[in-house]
Structures are given as C-alpha cells and as structure tokens.
C-alpha cells in the first residue's frame, strides 16, 4: 500500500536544551580515571541515566587514546552522548557525535551537583526541579534593530524599545515585546515554550513564529496590519488580537 501524502501540516523543527553533565578529563588519563572511580564509589549511581558529555578541548590525545578512554567509560557504565571540542581527525566510526555551541552552566547551579553522596535520589529530584523551573531572564534593547541584524536570546524574553526593520530578526526563548513597528521576523518560544507571546505596537511583520509554529505575512489577517497586536499559541495555531 502506498501512502498518499495529503497532510498539509508542516514538520515542526524546534531547538531544545537539556542539562547535561560535562566531564573534562586531564592527563594522565589513568590518574584521572582513578579519581573518577573514587567519586563514583562515594556517590553510587551518579552517572546513571544522565546525559554525559565529554569535553576534550584541552586534552591532547589521538584517536586510539580517545577510543581507549571511551572504552573505560563503557566499563564504568557511563554513557557518553557527545564529545565536545574534539578535532575531526580524532573522531571515528562508532564514537558519539561531536558537539559544539554548549554553554557552561553557572557555578552555583553545578555546585549542588558534586555532593550527592548521602542521598543520590534527592539530588536527582533537585536537578529535575531545576530543569522544570526556567530561570527568568530578559534583555532590553534600546535602539532599533536594523535590517540584517539579528538578536538571539534563548535564555528568555526580549524587549525592544524601537522598531524591528524589514530583514531583521529577533529569536527569543521566551516572549518578545516590540515597542515600535515590527517589520522583520520574530520567533518567540524558540526552545520549546508554547506559552511565549509576541507583542508589538505596529504589526507589519514578514514572519512570526511561536514554539516552532510559523506564520508568514501572507497568511496574516489584513485587518491586523499596522495595528498594535498580541499573538499567542492555542492548539498549535497562532492566534492574534489587537491591543487596545
């Protein structure tokens, strides 16, 4: 049976961030592994069911040594989901994928992690609570965003005091507020936040997106053009209403 593709729904592509533990080994490797074993013996299950990323940026090793190191992790039941900072030449078949663009988590967020010795369960709960409650952050931009410029702020809300020009874009993890005309593109809730909203003084946007659901200028109601508008997501549809 051939399946006829008549479904008009487009595929949604989103960014999403997860909290991963990053291990940065140092040389000599066997001494570092001994320290890891020592930590693991004091905190049973610390690495179980957690995404672990291996950071080899400052580690001068070749492919054979990396393979050996990955083997050592496998022996300890630590699943490496990605390798950061590796030269392409040392990555090979059967190795976890190379990663880039990771950002370090703030010191205090990590500080809670290394001491789960007494109650590993409680620590895990705390960690998941941290993930569930997004840290509230926002930036305010006090000048117009010009054509060709883009503001990317996955951490939270973006407020622009001025206009967003045709050919400019704002990408925010949270809501986007434009105190001026919106003539460019805005993507709110870009890291998977369906409750994000877009607000603007004057809607003339080229493209709007909330949580991966897109709408181009052509599909917007003509009655909204030039109006102060708020937009939100409801059942995977972008809803809009003029602001009074």
């Amino acid at each position, binding site marked *: 049976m051939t399946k006829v593709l008549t479904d008009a729904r487009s595929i949604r592509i989103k960014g999403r961030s997860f909290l991963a533990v990053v291990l940065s080994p140092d040389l000599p490797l066997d001494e570092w592994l001994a320290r890891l074993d020592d930590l693991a013996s004091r905190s049973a299950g610390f690495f179980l069911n957690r995404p672990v990323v291996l950071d080899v940026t400052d580690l001068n090793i070749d492919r054979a040594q990396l393979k050996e190191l990955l083997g050592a992790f496998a022996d300890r039941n630590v699943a490496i989901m990605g390798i950061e900072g590796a030269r392409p030449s040392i990555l090979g078949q059967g190795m976890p994928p190379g990663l880039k663009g990771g950002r370090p988590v703030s010191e205090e967020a990590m500080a809670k992690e290394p001491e789960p010795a007494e109650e590993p369960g409680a620590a895990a709960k705390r960690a998941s609570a941290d993930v569930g409650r997004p840290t509230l952050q926002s930036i305010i931009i006090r*000048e*117009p965003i*010009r*054509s*060709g*410029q883009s503001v990317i702020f996955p951490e939270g809300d973006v407020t622009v005091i*001025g*206009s967003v*020009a*045709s*050919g*400019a874009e704002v990408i925010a993890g949270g809501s986007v507020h434009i105190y001026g*005309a919106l*003539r460019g593109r805005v993507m709110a809730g870009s890291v998977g936040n369906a409750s994000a909203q877009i607000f603007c003084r004057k809607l003339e946007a080229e493209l709007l997106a909330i949580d991966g659901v897109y709408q181009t200028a052509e599909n917007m109601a003509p009655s909204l053009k030039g109006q102060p508008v708020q937009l939100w997501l409801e059942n995977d549809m972008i809803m809009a209403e003029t602001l009074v």
Partner: protein
Amino acid sequence: MGKVIVVTSGKGGVGKTTSSAALGAALAQKGEKVVVVDFDVGLRNLDLVMGAERRVVYDIVNVIQGDAKLPQALIRDKRLETLFLLAASQTRDKDALTPEGVETVITELKRYFDWVICDSPAGIERGATLAMRHADVAVVVTNPEVSSVRDSDRIIGLLDAKTLKAERGERIEKHLLLTRYDPARAERGDMLKVGDVLEILSIPLIGIVPESMDVLRASNIGAPVTLADTSSAPAQAYFDAARRLSGEVLPITIPGEQRGLFGKIFGRKAA
C-alpha cells in the same frame, strides 16, 4: 583636524556620487578646504561628475601602493580653489584597497583639509566598509522607495558596528539625505512619503533633494549641481544640507508642501 564624512547608501544608483560632489562643492564655496575621495575602485565616476576625468594622473591605489605621493594625486577643481578630488583607479578592483593604506591616506588628508568626503561604492562589501571605516559623520543617501530604504537600514546597522568610532564605543553621527524625491508621485502613493522613510530609518534628516533634470544636466557638463546652476532646486537643497552638516539649524521644507501660490505660478517650469 578635518571631519571625515562618508556618503553611503547600500543600494546603487540612488545618488551617492552626485551628492558627494554637490556637498563637496557647496562646502568649498563657503571657503572651507574640501577633498572628495572616490572609493569606487573599478567603477569610478566621481571624476566625470566633477569634470576632472582628463586630468587624472595618479589615483588612490597609486598612493596606497607607494607609486605616488598624496599631493601628486590630488586634483584641484578648475572652478573652486579649495575643492580637491582624489580619484579611484578604473583598472583595478576593490582588493587593491588595504585597511592600512586607507588609514594612512585618510589620516594625512584630515591634516590638510577641513572636510574629507568619502564617496562609497554600492554594496556592503570591502569597498563600502573601508569607505565608512574612518568616518566621523555618515550621510545616508536614500530614495523614497522600499528597496532603497531597506538597504539604507542595513547600512545604518553596519555604521553602528563596523566603523572605528563604533568599535571604540562612540556613536557615529548619521544623517539622512533623501534624494530623487518627486512630490507628485509621493502624493499619488507611487513613492514613500518623507514621514514613512523617517519613521523606518529613525535618523535625523539633513535634506530633501527633488528629482530634477538639473542634476542630469549638471553631470553631463561635468560639474557638481551646486556649481552648474546654483539657483536650481536640487542645488538649493544641497546648499542647505551642507549648512546643516556644518552645524547650522535650518527648518526643512518638504517639496510640494510649500507650493501654494509659488507653485501655481512656476508649477510647470519647476517640473
């Protein structure tokens, strides 16, 4: 130390070269020492508009490469004692301009001249970024139509990011010069209105130059419009813009909105 002005737009054909020559001649007529520098290496035009094409011996590329000294390459205008031209090379391309070379030339010109006017090539590549690099003031030339306005917006963004002033954390002074403005077409809605352009670009307006045959006529005889016919409407607009550049505060009149009686009498002739 002289002031460095870049005349830029992003889009081609909007009137950068015409405006560079006209503003240069207007400032020079006030007795100030002015040099107009053509950065459009490979597609030079400023020499034609200023009527100096038959006197170009050395150009900016020769100076940068050390084949000629700067005073040898400067061409004095035949009509105005204080107006000079530094031509671009027609046989080379923009790669012949090096950042160090441009810096040396501009630094030296600033020592001798009150105004260094850099006529930028179109685009946002090497030639344009080098022309704006050392500017204190930018004159953004824009036509009242959407593509020109969007390109100008892009250039303003670059002025705030890629000039030396911006990198030092200072603000580069930016002015909008609206050219080829046709009041009748703006009224019919075929062109953007002045208010629309100002709202989109949000930088101060330095002048509105009306669309006029006088501009074409001037460039055909090889004279900046502010020298060819000083009483014409575009020349008057450039004289006012030059005074505003020097810091004078003058009210701006939008062509077509002050017509009234004057327009009724001279309406036909003005077109």
